[in-house]
């Protein structure tokens, strides 16, 4: 039954995953996502699932790979420098086409960086989460409710595509509390239907002649054939592009931001509207596939400039914006990083400077 509760982002993610049918979780402690494994350690045994505290992120993601290979819904979570250690296992899952979900609660970087929130893993998340050039659907929530809804749906997407799905969030979203409506627990029948596609490959033991293989890599031209199949699957993601176009009907100044930066930008653009400035926002909800068309199809006679707001120095999403916009309007960056939070004032000041130049 759907219920409305007041929950912290990380715990809401964990509960939503359980309700989505997740029955295996492996993870390694790292701030600021520790409440996810802690919640799972309490919750999974209640629903007949299994929680393992891995000896490292490398081990945890490989446990996830093993668990998901048996056809159950499995998840893991980590943060930034921990996520770097996930590349091996994520790449293996992408290669063997294993559906699984993992969460990056981003913190400052590079390296050990800072434990405070950041958005410095954008390019890693959207372009190269491991070797081999695979792609994933990467969902970027901007509220605890979206965290819940996206995790719940992420398993369906993973099973539909037989591919990993990443929830890219940050330390703010993970630690803040908001009222959320929790989805209903997936029934066994529903899960069975979702799993059907994968089950012939589930490595659980089969009678002679019906063996299941979950293999990353191949021999001869097998690997290239797998890559061609995967590439064709990525091509079907145009329909999965999700973007919020907020107050864009008459916008002359366009904020571009995802996740926590989008929340801050939204508050600022409302203030600007009060001052009579026609500001709007394009918020990528899927950062992969990226909503290039939302930028490409802007009315460049009307739009005077784009403000890229990110908690990353240097900017990262800017690459995707530039790719779509191709210098047709100026792009201004308003950035923080290393665990330092953007403030409304900083975004407002940056916006005002830019507005003076372009309007």
């Amino acid at each position, binding site marked *: 039954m759907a219920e409305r509760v007041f929950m912290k982002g990380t715990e809401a993610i964990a509960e939503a995953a359980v309700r989505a049918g997740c029955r295996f979780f*492996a993870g390694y402690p790292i701030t600021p996502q520790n409440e996810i494994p802690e919640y799972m350690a309490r919750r999974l045994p209640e629903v007949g699932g299994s929680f393992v505290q891995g*000896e490292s992120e*490398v*081990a945890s993601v490989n446990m996830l790979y*093993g*668990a998901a290979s048996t056809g*159950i819904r499995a998840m893991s979570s980590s943060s930034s420098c921990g996520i770097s250690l996930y590349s091996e296992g994520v790449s293996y899952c992408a290669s063997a086409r294993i559906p699984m979900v993992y969460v990056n609660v981003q913190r400052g970087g590079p390296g050990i960086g800072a434990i405070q929130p950041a958005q410095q893993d954008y390019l890693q998340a959207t372009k190269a989460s491991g070797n081999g050039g695979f792609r994933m659907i990467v969902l970027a929530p901007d509220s605890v409710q979206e965290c819940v809804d996206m995790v719940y749906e992420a398993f369906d997407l993973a099973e539909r595509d037989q591919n990993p799905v990443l929830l890219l969030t940050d330390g703010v979203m993970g630690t803040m509390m908001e009222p959320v409506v929790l989805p209903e627990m997936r029934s066994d029948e529903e899960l069975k239907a979702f799993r059907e596609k994968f089950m012939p490959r589930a*490595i659980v033991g089969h009678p002679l002649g019906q063996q299941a293989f979950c293999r990353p890599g191949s021999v001869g031209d097998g690997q290239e054939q797998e890559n061609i199949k995967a590439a064709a699957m990525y091509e079907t993601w145009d329909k999965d592009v999700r973007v919020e176009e907020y107050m864009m009907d008459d916008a002359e100044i366009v904020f571009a931001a995802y996740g926590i930066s989008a929340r801050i930008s939204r508050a600022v653009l409302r203030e600007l509207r009060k001052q009579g400035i026609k500001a709007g926002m394009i918020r990528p909800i899927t950062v992969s596939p990226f909503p290039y068309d939302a930028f490409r199809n802007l009315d460049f006679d009307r739009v005077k400039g784009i403000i890229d707001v990110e908690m990353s120095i240097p900017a990262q999403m800017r690459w995707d914006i530039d790719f779509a916009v191709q210098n047709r309007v100026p792009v201004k960056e308003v950035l923080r990083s290393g665990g330092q939070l953007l403030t409304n004032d900083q975004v407002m000041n940056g916006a005002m400077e830019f507005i003076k130049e372009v309007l």
Partner: protein
Amino acid sequence: MAEEKKVYTRTKGIIEGAVSGFCPGCMHSTVHKLIGEAAEELGALDKLVRVEGVGCCGLGQFYVTCDETIAAHGRAGAVATGVKRSSPDSLVYTYQGDGDLAAIGLAETMSAANRGENFTVIFVNNGIYGMTGGQMAPTTLVGMKSTTTPKGRDPEEHGYPMHMSEIINQLTAPYYIERVSCDTAQHVIKARKAIKKAFQYQLEGRGYCLVEIVTSCPTNWGLDTLKSLDFLRDKMFTEYPLGVFRDKGAEEK
């Protein structure tokens, strides 16, 4: 005349008619058939799940008839943890070489053993990296030449061989640890018994079992098959003595 009876037959655990990709005299293929025979004798071939390590053991994927996944180098212990916990009725084993289990996968190996995960580890120790071309392994003997120790393993620089069965025997959780070999028919029969016992224990839910098989690598040792048997017995068995390190099942009886 009494009707003749088949007294030794090829196991259904390896693909009918398939010839292994292993080198002449390599005991990886022996171990593969023993795994098949042990599972077959237990009537558990249809439950068998192989988590394959990286290296020469990768050739096994074209040779065995069980469900299978391939772990990244060293991660078999972690992958098998995920598999077994999610599918407790499966008979899960990892198949790992010395580089895989004792070098790159040391953390995963020790941690899975320490948790007492209920799967079986088949550890093939031939003292060298095979597939990549004969580099030094943690188990390479002192003085033994490898492509990365061209003057032989020097303890001053490279340390000493690692004894994984002995090290894992320091942990409390493991249920059964035995080191065997495949150099004689008698040893092969003993190795099969060890694997079968480990599988039996897993089916009974007893926990972590390790069977280390000390083998030769004629190709990378640079010896012919028969001389490599001599080296195995003279040098490897001295460093890695065969025997049962722990058998909680026998103690309980």
